[in-house]
């Protein structure tokens, strides 16, 4: 294990920590800051991969992640927070239970998806060792869990952005898809966040409606 692979492992672990932090964070503004951090960390992973594989494409991808995902998306989200930004929060409860459930989700993500499905099938990855694929999977699973566990609109959108981050991370480790596709995907996500934030302006919490049952 040399230093650069170790660094990539560390940064991937940092994306996981941000995912857990977002899951626990009741304050929306802080969640948005954390999603910026996560995107920047993924950009850094991309830079590290560029150095590791001596491939310039990754630098471009990293810049794309940092600027489009990290700053533009978060700017769009942050505009939607009502007044007294720092106080806008969702009332969450039961940190230990949420965490333990998230842990179960993540472990299921690791064992079922990785051990039984991917570890034997995907062997030739850009990163070299295929166990790195675990990280994007767990980020995607935690993003889904974030959407399930929360009721706030912006928290849902952040969960979605987190999943997309997981997908980007996965494509960085496996094989970067063609640039034009990557770019359209980024633009799509931005547009989706824009539309979602327009919807978010209409409603901030979600309840079960009698009319939409069955």
């Amino acid at each position: 294990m040399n230093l650069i692979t170790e660094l990539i492992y560390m940064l991937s672990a940092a994306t996981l920590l941000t995912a857990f932090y977002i899951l626990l964070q009741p304050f929306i503004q802080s969640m948005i800051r954390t999603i910026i951090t996560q995107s920047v960390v993924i950009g850094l992973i991309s830079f590290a991969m560029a150095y590791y594989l001596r491939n310039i494409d990754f630098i471009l991808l990293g810049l794309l992640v940092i600027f489009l995902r990290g700053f533009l998306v978060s700017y769009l989200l942050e505009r939607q927070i009502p007044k007294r930004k720092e106080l806008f929060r969702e009332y969450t409860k039961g940190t230990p239970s949420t965490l333990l459930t998230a842990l179960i989700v993540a472990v299921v993500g690791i064992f079922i998806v990785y051990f039984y499905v991917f570890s034997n099938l995907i062997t030739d990855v850009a990163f070299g060792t295929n166990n790195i694929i675990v990280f994007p999977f767990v980020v995607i699973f935690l993003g889904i869990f974030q959407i399930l566990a929360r009721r706030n609109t912006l928290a849902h959108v952040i969960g979605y952005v987190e999943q997309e981050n997981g997908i980007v991370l996965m494509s960085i480790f496996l094989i970067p898809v063609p640039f034009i596709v990557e770019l359209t995907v980024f633009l799509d996500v931005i547009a989706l966040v824009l539309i979602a934030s327009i919807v978010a302006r209409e409603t901030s919490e979600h309840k079960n409606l009698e009319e939409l049952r069955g």
Partner: protein
Amino acid sequence: MDMNIILYLLIGLPILAEVGYLFNVMRITTILSAILILILTVLIHSALPIAGLFYITNFNWILILMVGSIYLLSALFSYDYLKERSIRMDLNYYYVFMNLFVATMLFSLIINNYGLMWAGIEATTITSALLVMTEQTSISVEAAWRYIIIVSVGLVFAFMSIILIYYNFHTLTVTQILSIPNRSSEIVTITVAIALVGFGTKIGIFPMHTWLPDVHSEAPAPVSALFSGVLLPVALYVLYLIYQIKPLDSLFILFSLATIIVASIFMTYQKNYKRMFAYSSMENMGIALLGLSIGGYGIIGALAVLFAHSFAKAGAFYSSGNILHSTGERNISKVNGLIHDMKTTSSALLLSSLAVTGAPPFGVFVGEFLIFIQMLRLHLYLEFAIVLFFLMVAFISINYNVNNMVFGKWRANKEAKGILKIIPLVSALISLLIGIVLIVVIA
């Protein structure tokens, strides 16, 4: 003229129509662009199959035709309908988003690249989300929200399958991948299965269908028609292209059977007629997926189902829009005796509900018949019995409810005006016509 230019124009026309926004004539430009798209579609038929930047075969040509027709019908229907409903939203905005919606659907239909197809499907979510909440009730906002979140989460998985396709073949071009001789490997199997989950969310395949009834019941009638009539088939087409990489027929048959069963059971106890029709769309998508996965006659059958269903279901949604506006009721049990005052609308409703449930002379019936033949040829007797039984359940529950709505004791209702009552009837009749033509051709 170069074929690519025509195809660029095909996608570009709805976007060009946005110019009308500047002069406040969105309605006219939209109808114009719909008519031009239909003309262009007919024109390119002689040049099929096209494979280059775009990929068009007879299969998706029919889907393009469907998109163009429903686009035209909805564009005609929307203006008067939304005027009547007194929507707060600026109708020009509505048309802007509708054009974008159609453009993204056409884009995902004809592009020759799995990745961009995914982008197109994701873009349909973006462009259609605001259309769902045109009426801006709190329920429609919630429905739009569920649509955005559930479908985008599903599409994340779809993109995972796109990455795996690229990982496996180092290209995303559809024609290149489909021409590789030995495509089958374990990783491809997993890719196709993930794609079923991902794109299945957009199609409304059983465990991922939960957004579908909400959106169809809360969106305004012309938007529901677009959703059910063409958006679901477009997503189905993309899934079918991925299915062709490696046909996982048993898995796909399993999921389509589950969809048919669940949709039919849910249909039996629906109180809201638009929701009931939404489950009927889900059931028809299940049948089409079944047809595509068994191959042979099944593919022709599936195409017939999709083609006829899009018109029939558009007719059903248009007429239920009229009924909703006239009575102000979404509840089936509170609507009855429509035949007395709303003769045209109720006959359109009756015809189209017969059509979507596969009553004999209609196109859906012919398609289902072809699928059944193929199932029996493949000795899928158990599946055949299951499908037949649940189609019967769906047939009975929809037609029983519609009969109660149309007939029964008199109640004062107001018939829709002018074009609003003609369009549902026209689309129901087109579906009938398709059926008759198909029967004649086959005979």
